[in-house]
């Protein structure tokens, strides 16, 4: 079980804690790099002071040597420090991604309710990356602070007054910059969102290209996109202006700080309190300060984004499970008796149903929504609002949904295929020793394989969209049959299959599932005619139960539902 994450803050903290060694190492070496960078302008000042001013060749050589040593040190510490920092970021991102996937796939479900797959995938990539990036941001933040402190230290040693100017000036500058950018940021964020809308609209139109072409809607779509694009342009321009304003303000503020340092340092040097070289260093340091200051601003933005992303990650991780695991477990030998007692859920009203072990039962629902509700309860994607569903006398509520699914399989109408060959898909859930051939033949996949270029070794892509609807359905059905579960519930497995093939599948299905409990939720007469008996769900209630032929003969509602 994944640990519970109550908040985004915890996600951030945990992510940094896991990578603390790399973050610490990165911060240490990064600080070394910053100290080195701060020393460069100091050394420039020293060279001017000791060598240039007095034309001292020996001093020049000596101090250039010192500069070389500083360079080697700063280059190496940057190299290894940044390596540790970046490694911590990608590792944190990776482990978050896996945690998210585990949560989404948790047998209790619930994480994907109300979230589109694209949005979830985005959280597992973009947001995970932003949260991971906080590790690097922390490291660079610490290093920059050390750089600023080094700067202040050197300046304080030179002159307390000069040091104080920088020490006080820097935070004031940062604070002013923050103050200026705050309202701009919120505004530009909203505008950027609108800007992103244009690309979403374009992608959506392209995704529906075939439909557009089918009804000749290209011109209307192009006009619509142009309107969206212009709207988005207006929003982007506003955001860009705001950003330009911010950049300009930061430049002006920084320039003013340099002027103040030059004023104070210049007067001190003119009064002889500090040397010429120290003035040069002070000015150089004030310029150097730009770097770490900008990095701090960047770190601030990264942290803000990281916090927002961590919030989204936490929200997914903390989603309540749709169903919870009970304490009981299944008997070693499952007979496959399924019983619904007084089940009300969605449109279902007090449904009572006894399914004998080994029975092949048909279920006809006059309203497709009721069929879906029934399947949700059987698959335990949700627990019924009232009543119980039992498997071999044990209520599904009392079982671990993961364990239950090793015995009871609900094969949904819109089940997805996955990347791999046709054969890989069929055998995905098959027992190791099992032979998938009977399942493939029964579902008509042998026929499908014959029309594919590489038979059942043909790769399936785009979640099965590379196959036609009928082919996809047959492969999905073969997978359900090959899984060889004690209880199998199949929903509308042949809607896109032609009549002849469907009749073959009906017979094959009966043969393969002989002796094991099978429920066919469908209105296809071809499939219903091979069942032992059929239950009619009308208005959410069980209104009749009898063999298919009998119901056809005597029940008008049934006839309408199945034939017509």
């Amino acid at each position, binding site marked *: 079980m994944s640990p519970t994450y109550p908040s985004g803050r915890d996600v951030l903290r945990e992510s940094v804690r896991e990578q603390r060694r790399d973050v610490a190492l990165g911060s240490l070496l990064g600080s070394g790099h910053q100290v080195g960078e701060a020393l460069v302008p100091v050394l420039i000042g020293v060279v001017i002071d000791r060598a240039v001013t007095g034309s001292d060749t020996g001093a020049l050589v000596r101090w250039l040597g010192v500069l070389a040593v500083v360079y080697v040190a700063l280059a190496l510490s*940057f190299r290894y420090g940044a390596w540790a920092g970046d490694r911590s970021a990608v590792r944190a991102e990776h482990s978050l991604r896996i945690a998210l996937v585990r949560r989404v796939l948790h047998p209790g479900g619930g994480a994907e309710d109300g979230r589109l797959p694209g949005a979830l995938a985005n959280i597992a990539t973009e947001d995970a990356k932003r949260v991971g990036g906080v590790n690097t941001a922390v490291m660079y933040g610490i290093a920059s602070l050390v750089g600023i402190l080094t700067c202040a230290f050197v300046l304080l040693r030179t002159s307390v007054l000069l040091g104080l100017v920088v020490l006080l000036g820097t935070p004031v500058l940062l604070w002013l910059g923050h103050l200026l950018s705050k309202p701009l940021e919120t505004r530009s964020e909203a505008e950027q969102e609108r800007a992103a809308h244009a690309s979403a609209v374009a992608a959506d139109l392209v995704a529906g290209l075939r439909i557009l*072409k089918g009804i000749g809607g290209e011109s209307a779509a192009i006009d619509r996109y142009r309107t969206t694009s212009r709207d988005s342009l207006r929003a982007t321009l506003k955001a860009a202006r705001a950003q330009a304003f911010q950049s300009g303000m930061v430049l002006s503020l920084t*320039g003013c700080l340099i002027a103040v340092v030059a*004023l104070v340092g210049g007067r001190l040097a003119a009064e002889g309190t500090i040397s010429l070289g120290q003035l040069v260093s002070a000015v150089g340091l004030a310029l150097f300060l730009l770097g770490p200051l900008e990095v701090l601003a960047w770190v601030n933005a990264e942290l803000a984004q990281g916090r927002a992303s961590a919030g989204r990650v936490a929200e997914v991780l903390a989603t309540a499970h749709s169903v919870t695991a009970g304490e009981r477990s299944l008997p070693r030998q499952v007979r496959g008796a399924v019983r619904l007692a007084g089940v009300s859920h969605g449109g279902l009203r007090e449904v009572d149903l006894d399914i004998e072990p080994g029975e092949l039962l048909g279920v006809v629902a006059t309203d497709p929504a009721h069929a879906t509700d029934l399947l949700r309860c059987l698959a335990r994607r949700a627990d019924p609002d009232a009543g119980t569903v039992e498997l071999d006398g044990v209520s599904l509520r009392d079982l671990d949904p993961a364990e239950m699914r090793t015995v009871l399989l609900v094969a949904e109408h819109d089940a997805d295929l996955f990347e791999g060959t046709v054969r890989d898909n069929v055998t*995905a859930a098959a027992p190791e020793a099992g032979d998938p051939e009977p399942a493939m033949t029964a579902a008509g996949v042998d026929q499908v394989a014959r029309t594919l270029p590489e038979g059942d070794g043909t790769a399936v892509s785009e979640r099965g969209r590379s196959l036609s609807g009928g082919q996809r359905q047959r492969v999905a059905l073969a997978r359900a049959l090959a899984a060889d579960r004690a209880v199998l519930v199949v929903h509308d497995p042949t809607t896109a299959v032609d009549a*002849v093939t469907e009749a073959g599948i009906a017979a094959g299905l009966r043969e393969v599932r002989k002796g094991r409990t099978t429920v066919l939720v469908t209105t296809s007469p071809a499939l219903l005619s091979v069942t032992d008996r059929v239950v009619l769900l009308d208005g959410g209630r069980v209104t009749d139960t009898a063999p298919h032929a009998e119901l056809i003969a005597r029940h008008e509602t049934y006839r309408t539902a199945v034939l*017509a």
Partner: protein
Amino acid sequence: MSDTARTLLPTATQARTRAAVRELIRPHRRLALGGFAMMIVATSVGLLVQPLLGRIVDLVADHRPPGSITLPVVLLVLVALAQGATTVLGLSLVSRLGETVLAHLRERFVEKALRLPLEQVEKAGAGDLTARVTRDVSVVGEAVRSALPELARSLLAIALTLVAMAALDWRFFLAALVAVPVQASTARWYVRNAVPLYAEQRIATGAQQQQLLDTVAGAGTVRAFRLEEEHTERVTRRSSAAVELTLRGVRLVLNFYNRLHVAEYAGLAAVLVTGFLLVRGGSVSIGTATAAALYFHSLFTPVNSALVLLDDAQSATAALARLVGVADQPSPELSSELSSEPAQRTGADIGIGAAGTVTVTGLHHAYEPGRPVLHDVDLTLRAGERVALVGVSGAGKTTLAKLIAGVHRPTSGSVHVTAGAGAPREGLPVALVTQETHVFAGPLADDLRLARAGAGDDELRTALATVDALDWAGALPDGLDTVVGDGGHRLTLAQVQQLALARLVLADPPVAVLDEATAEAGSTGARLLEQAADRAVEGRTALIVAHRLTQAATADRIVVMDGGRIVESGTHDELCAAAGPYASLWEAWSGTRATADRTPTHHPRPDTTTVKDH
């Protein structure tokens, strides 16, 4: 079809890409000139800082009174304010230029993309166009938004700083050039290694994204089949591969910086030595030497960012070439709505005659040479006739439907559609509705208006009512204004197909081709959809690819295909009596109806009972 060799959509050459960018910028020449002039001013003003600082150094070295430095300090403040103001202006202008050009480019791209013949899009694979419209547009957009202004600023800063150093003394300029060979070779080395590595990285990231989407979108299936561990493992593998490549990229970048540090040191030492020698020789002041050293020191940042941005620029150029490649596609006759539609829907040619007569003559088709799917098909659909196309999977029904709808160009033979005598009808002659289930994101009404722009609410309601969708559509939270599609209210598959049929009603073409438009809905839904489809094609010539024979049986005529040929044609009664392929299909279908002694809905046929008994 999925296996035909991929022919990716065109990519523009470098020269063509450059020319296209020039064309796009041309209407905004003034903006471009103004923007860059302002950036040059901003950068030049900024370069006054170092000489002013040098001036202060000189004043101190000359032992002037402390008050004398007030003037340069005041100037420094003025420079700061001027630099800020000009930067605001310059950046605004440059981003306005970039964003406007980008908007035009993406609009042109989307326009051309939507007008591409479907055949070409399908040959390229669905992913190609989607990747261009999402990734490439955003890469170029990102570059225009951040990389381009930054790169321009950096390059300007470098160039103008070097000019400023030369202005101090030409020998400083020469000293600064010491760093250039190292930087140039580093940049070349970096781009050479980075381009293939990043290409590999993008592939790995794409694979990871695809796997995530597969796993997340199929989470229900994964859980049902207990594939959680396997899928976690799949994602982990893909993610690890991406992590590995990212770290390789990091190593490369760090190596790159390492070399740049060497260049920095070499250049700085050279400038300092030059300053030392020039001051000793008396040709420059200490202040000037200081300004030169400070100049060189201030070059570090722009040089680093310019070199790093080289990579962004490179990938943006590649993305741009892919966009221009599509945007450059020749326009299929833009003159009028009427002529543009048939022109791109290449297959069918349009003539004048009884509205909606379709004549297919000697049609052959093969998606790949040597694997024919249609042989010598002749077929005439009379105006207003409803024809059902039946046959087992793989008989060639969909191919024939697509050829008639003009999606593909036949290998040989012809499809002729008469668009109506006298005043030709507006809009497209043949509409195609397939089992595709996309809903356009946005208000439901907007989705429908794609079929008929400017349709009033009443027209939309009538169309929805025709396909039995008005009840649920009216009951949506915001009625027809309810946002549907990606990120909006979710519709059931049956509702999505009803929408597709409603669009057909609104598009109002003389000929409608329905390719299993009712298949995805499940069997109960299918029946309701069939009724909706019947009403949607009323008054039109209709070709309906049906897998439910009840739908076929009610058609005016049934055409049976097998192995890419038409093997039978006639009414339900005739074909049943003929005891040919259709009769056996019908037997298989109705035979499963066991004791059912009912005939399909509104065509009482006494003889069907005999066919069913077996």
